[in-house]
């Protein structure tokens, strides 16, 4: 199918999909796991276990009364050794449960396929599964699948763009478990009564497109859309535009234009959960980067430390200078190798100083490359200037809150200015000003 809608801006970021051919291999049970009580956007969970308790695989160990939240389950069997705030992927301290494993991997008696007869059962099951958006932000899926009554959803979009360099965990799902993806889509379409689904995949993954196109032929509601390989193709707003031609209005959500977007891994997990009842306790993680000895895709119990995962990949060829959770465009730099893999971790990358260092800033020459690169049609150089001059009240004129923080501006800047970084500061300041 030809591309009807082409989003503006973006950058031709390198692909570096070195691990595309790496079939997922499962890591052995680590000696201990640290499972944070918040791995999603929303209210944190309260621990349901205390020091000394024994836990089994799949057992719920944290939950919350709040609607926008998602329960947390144990990925291992063993003994709880600590329940206290520990270092989390974002760099903050977060209440976490540390479990010393017993190596038996005994499965909890609570695990059984959920009984699902209608939409309400379906949404309840997804909450019980602890499912959150596995592509990036980690928004609770049961909330996403339950938009306000007045928003009619006519298109389910499945995100298989995977536009971040290095990451191949979505790609591996598409080639290793394509029928799971299709089954998951059918379940969502059936229970939510959505007429059609489109799987969007960047055209640098032709075999994934071919496989899913073949499987989608069974169901007339499902189609596959080949997308331009251009960063940030997989960002929600650009993806919706590329697939439907609809623009999510400023400050609104996909549901406002009749769309729900789910990652390929998220949707295939729905199928697997309804079949087995095993909640979200493992994650496929792409392990790569110039100092990783054996880059590969690894199936990891949630809560495993980054160090254990890197060790499984042959360790480092030289001391890592920077370690990322996520891709190089939007990933979060880690303070420590002791932080855990969480639900929405799709990659962990390790870089040396050459690739990991922050380049020195030069003066802005107003070349406008950041403007050309911005998919939201903003003026990053002007916002940068105003933020650095602390002119916070002028930032709304430049639509700062529309920034999706994709980083295309900083990527394209020949003066290596820290554009999106300053925009983040500006957004925060604008929000605080609003509250005050």
């Amino acid at each position, binding site marked *: 199918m030809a591309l009807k809608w082409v989003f503006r801006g973006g950058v031709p970021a390198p692909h570096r999909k070195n691990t595309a051919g790496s079939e997922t291999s499962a890591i052995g049970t680590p000696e201990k796991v640290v499972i944070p009580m918040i791995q999603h956007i929303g209210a944190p969970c309260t621990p349901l276990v205390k020091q000394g308790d024994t836990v089994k695989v799949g057992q719920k160990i944290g939950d919350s009364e709040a609607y926008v939240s998602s329960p947390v389950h144990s990925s291992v069997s063993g003994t709880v050794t600590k329940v206290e705030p520990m270092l989390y992927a974002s760099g903050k301290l977060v209440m976490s449960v540390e479990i010393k494993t017993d190596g038996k991997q005994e499965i909890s008696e609570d695990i059984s396929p959920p009984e699902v007869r209608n939409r309400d059962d379906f949404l309840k099951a997804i909450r019980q599964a602890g499912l959150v958006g596995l592509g990036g932000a980690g928004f609770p899926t049961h909330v996403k699948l339950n938009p306000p009554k007045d928003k009619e959803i006519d298109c389910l979009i499945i995100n298989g763009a995977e536009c971040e360099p290095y990451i191949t965990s979505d790609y591996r799902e598409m080639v290793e478990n394509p029928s799971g993806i299709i089954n998951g889509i059918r379940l969502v379409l059936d229970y939510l009564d959505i007429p059609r689904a489109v799987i969007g995949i960047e055209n640098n993954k032709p075999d994934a497109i071919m496989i899913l196109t073949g499987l989608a032929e069974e169901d007339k509601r499902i189609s596959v859309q080949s997308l331009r390989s251009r960063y940030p193709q997989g960002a929600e707003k650009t993806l919706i535009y590329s697939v439907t031609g609809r623009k999510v209005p*400023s400050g609104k959500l996909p549901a406002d234009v009749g769309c729900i977007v789910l990652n390929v891994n998220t949707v295939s997990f729905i199928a697997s959960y309804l079949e087995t009842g095993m909640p979200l306790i493992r994650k496929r993680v792409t392990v790569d980067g110039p100092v990783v000895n054996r880059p590969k895709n690894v199936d990891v119990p949630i809560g495993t430390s980054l160090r254990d995962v890197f060790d499984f990949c042959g360790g480092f060829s030289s001391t890592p200078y920077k*370690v990322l959770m996520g891709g*190089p*465009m939007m990933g979060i*730099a880690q303070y420590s190798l002791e932080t855990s893999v969480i639900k929405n971790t799709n990659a962990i990358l390790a870089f040396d100083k050459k690739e990991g260092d922050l380049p020195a800033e030069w003066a*802005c*020459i107003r070349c406008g490359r950041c403007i050309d690169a911005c998919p939201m049609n903003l003026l990053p150089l002007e916002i940068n200037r105003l933020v650095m001059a602390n002119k916070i009240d002028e930032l709304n004129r430049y639509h700062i809150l529309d920034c999706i923080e994709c980083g295309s501006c900083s990527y394209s800047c*020949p003066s290596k200015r820290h554009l999106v970084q300053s925009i*983040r500061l500006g957004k925060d300041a604008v929000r605080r000003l609003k509250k005050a």
Partner: protein
Amino acid sequence: MENRLFVCSSPHLRDNATTQRIMLDVIIALLPPAAAGIIYFGLRSALIIAVTIAASVLTEYLMRKGLKRDQTISDLSAVVTGLLLALNLPPSIPVWIAIVGAVIATGLIKQLFGGLGQNFMNPALGARVILVVAWAKQMTTWTEPLADAVASATPLSLLDATATATPVGGTDWYSYMDMFLGKIPGCIGETSALAILLGFVYLLARGVITWHIPVIYTGTVALLTWVLGPEGLFTGDPLYHVLAGGLLIGAVFMATDYATSPMTRKGTVIYATGCGLLTVLFRLYGNMPEGVSFAIILMNILTPLIDRHTIPVAFGGEKGVG
């Protein structure tokens, strides 16, 4: 803690473009016009170019040192300013005037206003205009190409002197071919349309500039000089006006200066059209034969205003969306 990890905010990946490389590209693009100047006006042109560049770089070096700022000469922008200024000077310009021009361009217009990217007008053009006013005679004494003689007139001064004549046909007129190749009196780098076009194509291919400002600017001049002809409407000679004087070098190399042209496409169109309008106004109805420098500088000064009124609507912020 053993081996501390380096932490910073994303993105953790940048592309290969650098400011230095962009400046180098501009220098490369200016080589054909510089070569044409040396071929037509002799080695003295090379001397002027070398001295002006050296004076510009030295000025930047000393000012940064004096103002206790980071040294910036390695970004090559001082070289670009010096080279551009030299190409906009007559071949016979006294060396000391060229040096004064470089000091004004880089010291006064660029560094005193904050350095690269902060200047409110194109440094080379600003300096040129000051030189034209201060040393009018030296700045309008022209050399005959391929001959060591003072030229009687440039294509534009010829036009000014014989405001009612038709350029084509008369024996005193320069041929289009001479104008295209650059075999006409004028500033060192402005005479050869061919050389400037080579530079233009290079800049386009390297993605340093887009076609918009040069094409819209030149197009506006062509259209208006054709419409506002000497013998009534639609009797003008647009080709002559495009090839004569500093229009092409101005449109390709000066009006496209990042720091002093608008940021957005819409702003760019307004700006380039304005440059064209003013150039024609000054050329046809002004006291001096040429108007490119003044036109661009005026539009440079209007650029912040244009930018303020052309802030684009964000994706999804359009009326009627959703």
